[in-house]
């Protein structure tokens, strides 16, 4: 579903992501683990077409993010770590704006919005301006907007930060449901426990380079990564 080949991204003199290659398959929840500043967000933003990169290739379902960005973006949803949304819109208006952009028909969007809003317990506030929302409420609206067009690939940056336990549980359910329907999830985290519980595969990034990729058991069993795990757990 998502194929990253030799991705390199520099910010001035600093190389944020260095020759990173990775593949995420359909039906897979893939955690991207690393310390703060390791290059997780840069990689995810590059996959979404938000950040241009210096070299390498990223393809989604065989299409290049660089040469065919609109087709790629139609298949993905992105959830940032800090959901800065349009504060001049109501929550419901924002979700509808995203649905308009993705061309979701009225019946489908209404059904999905009502379902997600009830389950995430934000239905009573969708008629209120986003400017008055808490961080968690914005996160919930961003999740609904991301899922409203039923993406094939869901890219998330620290998705569980700021969510209450109930909403985290509901989101995990959505992720599993999406994968069962043939979708793929690629999300970043610096918390090992979160990754261990829900993911099928993990990749570890350190100083912009991919250190290891595989199933959780394979990666955890790799004794050479002891120092990396100590960093993440410590």
């Amino acid at each position: 579903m998502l194929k990253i080949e030799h991705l390199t991204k520099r910010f001035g003199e600093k190389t944020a992501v260095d020759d990173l290659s990775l593949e995420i398959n359909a039906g897979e929840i893939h955690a991207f683990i690393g310390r703060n500043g390791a290059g997780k967000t840069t990689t995810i933003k590059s996959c979404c077409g938000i950040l241009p990169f210096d070299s390498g290739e990223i393809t989604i379902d065989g299409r290049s993010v660089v040469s065919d960005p609109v087709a790629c973006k139609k298949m993905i949803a992105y959830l940032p770590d800090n959901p800065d949304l349009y504060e001049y819109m109501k929550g419901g208006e924002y979700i509808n704006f995203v649905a308009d952009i993705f061309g979701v028909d009225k019946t489908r969007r209404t059904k999905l919005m009502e379902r997600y809003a009830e389950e995430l317990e934000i239905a009573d506030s969708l008629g209120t301006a986003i400017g008055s929302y808490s961080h968690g409420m914005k996160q919930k609206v961003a999740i609904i907007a991301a899922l409203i067009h039923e993406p094939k690939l869901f890219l998330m940056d620290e998705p569980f930060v700021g969510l209450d336990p109930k909403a985290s549980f509901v989101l995990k359910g959505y992720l599993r449901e999406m994968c069962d329907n043939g979708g793929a999830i690629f999300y970043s985290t610096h918390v090992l426990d979160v990754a261990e519980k829900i993911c099928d595969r993990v990749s570890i990034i350190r100083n912009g380079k991919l250190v290891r990729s595989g199933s959780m058991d394979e990666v955890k069993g790799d004794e050479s990564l002891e120092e990396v795990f100590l960093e993440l757990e410590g």
Partner: protein
Amino acid sequence: MKSILIKKELKAFIRSFLRKKDGTYGDTKRGILIALLFVFLFGSLGFSVFFMLSGICGPIVYMGIDWLYFSLISIAILSIGVIGGIFTAYTSIYKAKDNDFLLSLPVSASDIIVSRMIGVWTITLFFSLIVGVPALIAYYVNGRFSFVLLIENIIFILSLSLISVTICCVLGWVIAQFAARVSGNLKNAGIMIVSILGFGAYFLFVNRMYDIVESIIGNLTGIAADFSGNFNPLYIAGAAGAGDIVRLLILFGASLILIAAAVLLIRPRFGALATASKAAKAERFDSGSVKVKGARGALLGREFKHLFNSPVYLLNCALGALMVPLVTGILLFNIPQEAVGDLKAWVGSFADETVIGLVCSAVVVFISSMCYITAPSISIEGKNFWILKSAPINPMDVLGAKLLLHIIVAEIPSVACIIVLDMYFGMPAVCIVLGVLTVVLFVIFQALFGLCVNLIKYNFNWTSETFAVKQGASVVISMFGNMLVTLAVFLPYLLVVCNGLIYQSMVCAAALITCIALYAWLRSRGVARYNCLEV
């Protein structure tokens, strides 16, 4: 801590003009360009202020009541300072995005308020100087000059700018009190109505300015008698400006005391007011009312929603759309229908009467250049830019929506006004058609120019929308660039004095070619720049 906060405010102000893409400063070329723009601003506005005030200054100096001149310019400086700074005060004190963060730090509310006030002061000082500098030059030319007087006058202007800040901050506090008590839509509507009434009063004043000046000159002794008196603040301010050192110290001391009093007034409810918008009554969303749109429709709808939900954006960048009919109304009011014949006959003595149509187009185009909606439209996306960048939309659709918003808002009143003006002055049909074409093309040019400049000079790192819509380099370049282009296109007529229709046709052709060139740049290099923008 206070000095760190002040440094941060000043840095944000300077960054909005001089910051380069890589975040560094110190580019000499950039500094020179910005300085030239400011010289143009000061020059164009300063000349008219200088000539108007010279007319008052001469008789006052002749009568030996110099203090009255400074009393009058004190009123002008305070007025323009307050008009220029009131909404900056409200937004930068109460609506700054980093208020929550600063309130969480071990920083006193007074320190936050003072640092914000410094930011507002940069604006009021700027406006004070627009009137103050030509006013002082008029006095030095018509009255007297000495180095000591110059120093005293610097303190005089400084004191008045500080009093302007105080008034702005107190009025900002009143707006914040109002905003905290009413819902979002009512709040925006209230702010806009008050602002439009304020601008209406301002233009009424400008319209009657020459009558006021004449009545002042005709009644100098009477006004002097009204203002005089040792405890009259206007007399104190006037005497301070005229070089009375004791009264200058009183004025300066009073300005500092007023600032301190304003801080004391604002401080008690600062935290509550700065976070007031966070509390809102929860409401369910009515899904049934949703109208499904295509991507382009959604983007245009989003642009409209942003403009009309942000009083700062609307009042600063779309003001030209309101001013075009206002100025048209003033013109029609001041030139009665009976005088049109005389005007035509006078114009006919040196050119053909269609020149009137050309002048009408120039006026409408010049005023519409004060509508610069596209100029901050990229910067204003701020931290939300990720939404557009991650959406499956063509960059030209995003840029097109921004252009269309500007064109719709500015074009409708401009076209209506040029038709009304041309018909009022009895211009032939071909002149009306050319007038409409000129206005349409120039508004499109203004929209394109603003957007192109903002793609080059964008700034996503602002803490208050005011920085993006009021102080960004792209806004200054677009607004004055548009004015300069208008003057550069229409003024050469005075050198050639040919048939008005021929000249206007040439203007249209030039505008059309420029619009095509700008649009071509936008589609190629503009889109490439858009794709490289990083939040």
